[in-house]
């Protein structure tokens, strides 16, 4: 804006207009492709749009062509970080169609793997948040200690990342006392490390300046926009499928739902830190109270053909409530597999909340939602036959009407 007190002939007038800045699709905040198109006036964001579709792989359609059992491994590959929760949700849907209940030991082991996954997922996003803020040292340290949990996952499942652990009627590997001891040692190393990083997050001036009061979402907005997971819990909305649905061993394992009242990026980080401690507590409880009995089903004796039926299951992924709808018309392949991931709501519905912040805050806010692009890429609305695009309102998209 031109200063009116200065003489006009000495001032170079720069016309203030809206500038369109693409944030992404290459590395907008996380290593996954999404384009946040930001319209800025000066430094301030006046409008934002989310453009998706860079990572669409047609998994739902592929799931209809493969058999029920092949889909367990396919669903695990929807998202690398939360692969066990995807597999668990799908397998529980299959078990509901088959009217089969896994043994208690298997339920406990499933819960253990999912909690380890939550732990490393939360550590990853907290590390990435620190990196975006510019605190690369913290990022490196957190990623170093995250390796311990990856090792724990390898001990339980046989692989660092892709677990392929959950099977209809149980799990695919059992734990022995030697492995239990190893896991307990790892947990005792990880807990003080995370406490240390939480202290850094709480006290560091740079992190506080960049995170406190940024990306505020009021509890009312969380409800109207259908936000899930830590994003909702940081705005004091106690939504947690582990608590409401009490699937697997969550009905028997004591745990608490973490909520914060900050409503901003910092509050979301704190929710993740505190949830990490809850996860460690759950893991410890499971390792100490593991029921005896069989956990591994003989995969050669599982029924190949499924009866007619449908099932809708939910699971609390590290990013929020994940739901699967599986429909069987009999035979060896599902008729329909519908996946709704929490990132879908959390990324697309939070677009209005960038407005009013500076451009530098955009990646910070995006990272605070813990976006998982590969999870959410499953709704491309392009009409090839008519050669046009359909414009769908955000509300319809979020409801899944479109």
């Amino acid at each position, binding site marked *: 804006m031109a200063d009116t007190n200065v003489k006009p002939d000495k001032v170079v007038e720069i016309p203030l207009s809206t500038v369109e800045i693409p944030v992404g699709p290459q590395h907008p905040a996380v290593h996954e492709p999404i384009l946040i198109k930001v319209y800025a006036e000066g430094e301030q964001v006046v409008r934002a749009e989310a453009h998706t579709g860079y990572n669409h792989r047609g998994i739902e359609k592929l799931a209809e062509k493969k058999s029920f059992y*092949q889909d367990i491994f396919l669903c695990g590959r929807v998202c690398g970080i939360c692969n066990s929760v995807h597999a668990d949700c799908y397998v529980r849907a299959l078990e509901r169609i088959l009217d089969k209940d896994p043994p208690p030991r298997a339920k406990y082991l499933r819960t253990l793997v999912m909690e380890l996954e939550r732990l490393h997922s939360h550590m990853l996003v907290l590390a990435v948040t620190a990196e975006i803020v510019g605190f690369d040292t913290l990022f490196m*340290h957190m990623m170093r200690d995250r390796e311990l949990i990856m090792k724990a996952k390898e*001990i339980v499942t046989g*692989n660092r990342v892709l677990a*392929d652990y959950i099977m209809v009627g149980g799990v695919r590997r059992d734990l022995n006392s030697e492995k239990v001891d190893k896991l307990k040692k790892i947990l005792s190393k990880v807990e003080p490390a995370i406490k240390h990083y939480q202290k*850094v997050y709480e*006290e*560091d*001036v740079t992190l506080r300046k960049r995170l406190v009061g940024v990306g505020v979402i009021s509890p009312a907005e969380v409800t109207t926009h259908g936000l899930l997971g830590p994003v909702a819990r940081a705005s004091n909305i106690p939504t947690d499928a582990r608590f409401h649905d009490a699937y697997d061993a969550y009905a028997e394992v004591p745990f608490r739902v973490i909520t914060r009242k900050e409503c901003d990026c910092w509050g979301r980080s704190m929710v993740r830190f505190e949830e990490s401690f809850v996860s460690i507590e759950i893991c410890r409880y499971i390792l100490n109270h593991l029921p005896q009995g069989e956990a591994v089903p003989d995969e050669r004796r599982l029924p190949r053909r499924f009866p007619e039926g449908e099932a809708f299951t939910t699971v609390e992924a590290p990013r929020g409530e994940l739901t699967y709808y599986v429909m069987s018309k009999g035979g060896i392949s599902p008729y329909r597999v519908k996946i709704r991931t929490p990132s879908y709501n959390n990324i697309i519905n939070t677009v209005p909340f960038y407005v009013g912040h500076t451009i530098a805050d955009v990646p910070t806010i995006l990272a605070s939602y813990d976006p998982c692009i590969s999870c959410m890429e499953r709704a491309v609305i392009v009409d090839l036959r008519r050669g046009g695009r359909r414009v769908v309102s955000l509300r319809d998209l979020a409801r899944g009407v479109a």
Partner: protein
Amino acid sequence: MGALPLLKEVLKNIFRRPATIEYPKVETPVEPDARGRQYADLNKCVGCSLCMIECPPKAIRMEKIPEGYEVPKRNARRMYPVIDYLKCIYCYRCVTVCPTRAYVTTSEYRLATSVATTSRELSLSTLKKAAQKSSGG
């Protein structure tokens, strides 16, 4: 100041050995039962193709066992599974569905090779070579 405890650790790290595993010099520690390269033991395999049918990424093909090997009688069709390691996702579905538990599992993760991209040689090496007389049949 929150950075202060971190600063202490940073200063300590200057004198520590690197946390990164220096891979070619030092081997990455892997659990003995980690899911690595697997192949079929042809002394147990009956050539039923179940692993091929169940394989999620369709990485397994059934092939005819070449002449010159002593094949067990129960594998009458002389078929055996060949895994394409470039397609394999190491989910071990083939290992668990095998009716004769014929698969040999290893924790071998170093698969970057220009030679053994399939399990053909590993599987055939489990069979004895036939004596010259019977090799014609």
